């Protein structure tokens, strides 16, 4: 059976989403702690939050395209994709907790 469109792009999208979550967990505290970078985001994207979102979009779509091209002939077993989605889940959760922890200590400690 020929792989469907989603089977072809799936691993690339999951990997890109995983790395985008990790990227955001690093980018956001870095921007908050580095006034020069935060000001650059403000100057370039009119608001630092828009800048963070735009960079995340860029990373996600860039990585999706790159991984899709790299893996265009690779055949993925559904179990392997399952492991990839499980890793993505873990890192999305950890990234969210990192950001939550960062803003908690920033606000209260």
């Amino acid at each position, binding site marked *: 059976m020929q792989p*469907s469109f989603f089977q072809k792009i799936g691993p690339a999208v999951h990997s890109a989403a995983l790395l985008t979550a990790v990227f*955001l967990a690093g980018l*956001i505290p870095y921007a908050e702690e580095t006034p020069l970078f935060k000001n650059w985001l403000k100057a370039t994207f009119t608001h630092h*939050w828009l800048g963070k979102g735009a960079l*995340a979009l860029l990373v996600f779509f860039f990585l999706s395209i790159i991984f899709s091209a790299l893996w265009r002939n690779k055949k993925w077993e559904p179990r392997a994709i*399952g492991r990839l*989605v499980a890793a993505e889940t873990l890192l999305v*959760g950890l990234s969210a907790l990192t950001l939550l922890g960062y803003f908690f200590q920033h606000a209260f400690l």
Partner: protein
Amino acid sequence: MTPLLATLLITHVIAGIIAISMLYVLSIHLLKRTPNFVFLSRIGWTAALLFWLSWATSAYYYVTYYGKAVKPRILEGTYPAGHIFFMEAKEHVFLVLPFAVLSLAVALSMLRRTPDEKLKRAAQMLAFVCLVIGTFTAAAGIIVSGSV
């Protein structure tokens, strides 16, 4: 607040709440032994679309109105943590959600064609984690509104 901003804010809230409800539906249905993946992939894509819509509408409101008109009132009010912690955490934690939910929709579309137990369990965990993040952002939004 202009009618445009009010419409965008309402769209942000309603789209976000419906999308979170859909994540709840996904989390529950993925517990079934043989879920209907045609139904679930449609729900997944709709949730992804609604999160992207919620993001776009909130962006315009947040950048043009919140910082000038709402944030100063929260900071001068009795509960400044409404902005200092809840808004800051909400707006940033949310950023992981549109990508994760898009990826969830892709996984559900794969399951529609090739059901697999391991992928199904991973998609269920991802739906649950997204549900928790979504619920936090919605709850934080309520606290921010109550802090004005």
